[in-house]
């Protein structure tokens, strides 16, 4: 058997337990060829399950060891890795759960997986130098309407239907998880502040203004959005308040003009 055929056969055994490679392995005293091969098949699943446990620690705790291991093995068998780093292996777990019977019975599980994965992505997202408040204060008033904003690479905007953040916080603090609750989808934000991952819920108005700002709309347009959505009179003051919060959270890393 040439090298390519041998590697194909061994990989088919590890991923899909196809027995072809068995013919190429010697049985030695102590353990048969199939016992020796099993070490690789078992180690493959144990190792990737451990990777998933490390990337989804709260989901693992919430489900319990047995149920999480079952989920992990199903995911591993359905999603052989094609990345050189295990860092990216769990990227499809949220989608996998949405389609799996377990996730369809308990839709909050997919949301919890998605929340943890966003924290992982923020954790090692590219570094960026945040804009400080003084930089904004130094701008002449005339330049404000045309001002655009670039946000840090770790920022992620998403919606949650379930109380997964409350569940995440309780388990992370070693407390019992609250009962699942669902309601209308609410906007959330995950980002990295210095070296630490942060998250917070977003009021609907702030969410739509932030979306517009991230898509490159200038400050004058953000004020218009506030004007349409808010009851208060001073839309510029409200838009400025949003911006100040984003700067305090170190979300903004570049200012630009039209």
């Amino acid at each position: 058997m040439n090298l390519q055929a041998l590697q194909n056969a061994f990989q088919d055994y590890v991923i899909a337990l196809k027995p072809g490679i068995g013919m190429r392995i010697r049985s030695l005293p102590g353990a048969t060829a199939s016992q020796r091969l099993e070490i690789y098949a078992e180690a493959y699943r144990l190792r990737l399950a451990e990777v998933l446990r490390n990337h989804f620690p709260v989901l693992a705790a919430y489900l319990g060891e047995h149920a999480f291991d079952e989920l992990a093995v199903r995911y591993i068998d359905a999603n052989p890795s094609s990345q050189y780093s295990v860092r990216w292996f769990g990227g499809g777990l949220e989608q996998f759960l949405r389609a799996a019977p377990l996730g369809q019975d308990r839709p909050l599980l997919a949301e919890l997986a998605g929340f943890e994965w966003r924290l992982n992505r923020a954790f090692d997202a590219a570094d960026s130098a945040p804009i400080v408040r003084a930089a904004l204060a130094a701008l002449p008033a005339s330049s404000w309407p045309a001002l655009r904003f670039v946000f840090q690479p770790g920022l992620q905007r998403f919606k949650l239907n379930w109380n997964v953040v409350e569940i995440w916080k309780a388990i992370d603090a070693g407390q019992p998880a609250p009962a699942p609750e669902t309601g209308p989808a609410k906007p959330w934000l995950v980002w990295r502040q210095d070296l630490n991952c942060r998250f917070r819920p977003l009021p609907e108005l702030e969410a739509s203004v932030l979306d517009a700002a991230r898509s490159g709309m200038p400050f004058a347009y953000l004020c218009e959005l506030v004007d349409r959505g808010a009851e208060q009179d001073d839309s510029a003051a409200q838009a400025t308040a949003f911006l100040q919060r984003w700067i305090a959270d170190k979300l903004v890393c570049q200012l630009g003009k039209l």
Partner: protein
Amino acid sequence: MKQSRPNPGFGLGLRKEHYESVLRDRPAVDWFEVLTENYLVPGGKPLYYLERVRERYPLAMHGVSLSIGGCDPLDYRYLRELRQLAVRIEPLWISDHLCWTGVNGRNLHDLMPLPYTAEALAHVVERVAAVQDFLGRQILLENVSSYVTYRDSDMPEWDFLTAVAEQADCRILLDINNIYVNGFNHGFDPRRYIDAIPAGRVWQFHVAGHQDHGTHIIDTHDAPVIPAVWDLYAYAWAKLGPVAAMIERDDHIPPLAELMSELAFMRERVEMRVAAEGAGS
């Protein structure tokens, strides 16, 4: 691109559990080995700590994704990232494993054994040359633990490793524990393996713990080094040293102080050996 063999001394694997104590306590470790893939990320804590540790200690880069024996084309995206990281931290050297990790675009994230054949040898030699050209430096290849013996193999592992190093003109990272594990699993005398390795090619030793399952041993890096592996290490040092050496611990990571005492033991083993040789001469 050749350099003479450096000997930075006795090292440990850098693990995230120890970042803070390494920076705060400045432990008497001569150098650290880092798992390359942990730092091939865009930013955040891993690179932050890596740079701060690098300000204080020499670092060696140890990868698991090169798949030097794999039949897929070399992954130049990976190699470019590897090269960029090397520019950033100026490592003592870059090492990976004499193995394959997947084919057809898949990655098993394991160090899969190669058959010891002329075909595999020629394949690896050609790829090492390409990698060394791309990186502009010689690499170190490490012998891996294995649990299967291929019917196709027609030379012993030590001959295969030596031939790769000689023909590809690369260096060897000799893992003493893996020699011990393979000696047990495949029924050979580990000292015979060490005797066959050309001393000038070996730039680094690994020692580590493992799990003994009675019928076979699994290389788990999750336990203290056993006395028989320390004996083999002392033997290898006498035959091949002086060589930079480090202790690998990848799981059940103990407090740094515990690894420091294991490292002190490692130093003592070498000093005892040197003293004994001095007394005997």
